[in-house]
């Protein structure tokens, strides 16, 4: 119950924050509402047993990105609270399109039978995602490969408790304790994320350098007065 309650609370906060971001004209306030919304998303992550992700969301988004945005606002704003108004017609059109898009998405979500897509999904939506059910699902496999059954059970338990840091770290190193590699065979997903991780790392580095390069103070060749100022 408490979980549902928490979910609704944070869901409302998330959605409301997002709508407020859209509705607010002042940039600084938009940033505030954005923080509210993103923070609530982090809470939702916790609810989904993605603890590390929730933490990362808070750290990176709320602590990093939004601060960055605020810096941006500061650097670009002519005045401290400047607003660039949107025409009301545009707002209406935007709202209408947004609503329609929302309807499309909602109807899409509603029209998909998620249980049929996922083999692990319980037949009844009410059925909780438990270690038992996992155990049942893997019973036949456990008989064949009894040595690894215990490990798998442990993993499922760990996952349910949201302690996924270790698993994520291992997956970034290319190790997937949560997967039976024989099961997926050639069609299964890639076993680890070592290479993407490295790419993303380098990418991040490059982007930071690039961003620094782009954002550095430049002299403008075309404008004589700016040259004299510099």
């Amino acid at each position, binding site marked *: 119950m408490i979980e549902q309650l928490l979910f609704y609370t944070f869901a409302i906060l998330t*959605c409301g924050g997002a709508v407020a971001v859209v509705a607010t004209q002042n940039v600084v306030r938009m940033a505030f509402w954005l923080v509210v919304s993103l923070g609530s998303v982090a809470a*939702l992550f916790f609810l989904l047993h*993605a603890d590390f992700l929730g933490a990362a969301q808070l750290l*990176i*988004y709320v602590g990093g990105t939004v601060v960055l945005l605020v810096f941006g606002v500061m650097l670009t704003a002519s005045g401290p609270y400047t607003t660039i108004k949107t025409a009301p017609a545009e707002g209406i059109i935007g709202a209408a399109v*947004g609503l329609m898009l929302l309807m499309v998405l909602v109807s899409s979500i509603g029209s998909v039978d998620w249980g049929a897509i996922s083999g692990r999904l319980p037949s009844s939506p009410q059925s909780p995602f438990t270690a038992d059910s996992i155990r049942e699902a893997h019973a036949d496999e456990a008989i064949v490969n009894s040595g690894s059954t215990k490990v798998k059970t442990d993993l499922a338990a760990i996952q349910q408790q949201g302690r996924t840091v270790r698993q994520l770290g291992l997956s970034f190193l290319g190790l997937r304790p*949560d997967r039976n590699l024989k099961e997926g065979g050639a069609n299964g997903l890639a076993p680890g994320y070592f290479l993407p991780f490295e790419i993303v790392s380098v990418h991040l580095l490059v982007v930071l350098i690039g961003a620094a390069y782009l954002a550095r103070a430049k002299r403008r060749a075309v404008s004589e007065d700016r040259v004299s100022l510099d």
Partner: protein
Amino acid sequence: MGDVGLNAYLMVGAVLFVCGVVCMATKRNGIGVLMGVELVLNGANVNFVAFSRYTSLGLDGQTIALFVIVLAAAEAAVALAIALNFYNNHLTIDVDRGNELQG
């Protein structure tokens, strides 16, 4: 022990996504547009994590969400740099002023 189920999370993600899109479409302020982008990305992230929890996606959903967060941070950094450049060039952050892409 109650569970809100997958659909509820997906709804939240959808709302976030739509808000992000509308934000991008309506804000004339460049920073506002960036915020819209963040919202869209978060909408997607919510979905990923929800799928990780409720479907066979498992740990992969969380991993990809993590990547998204990281890339979003990178994107924000670059986007801000672009916004600054834009501001340097146009002396404003109004994206309607930047219509060089007009065919």
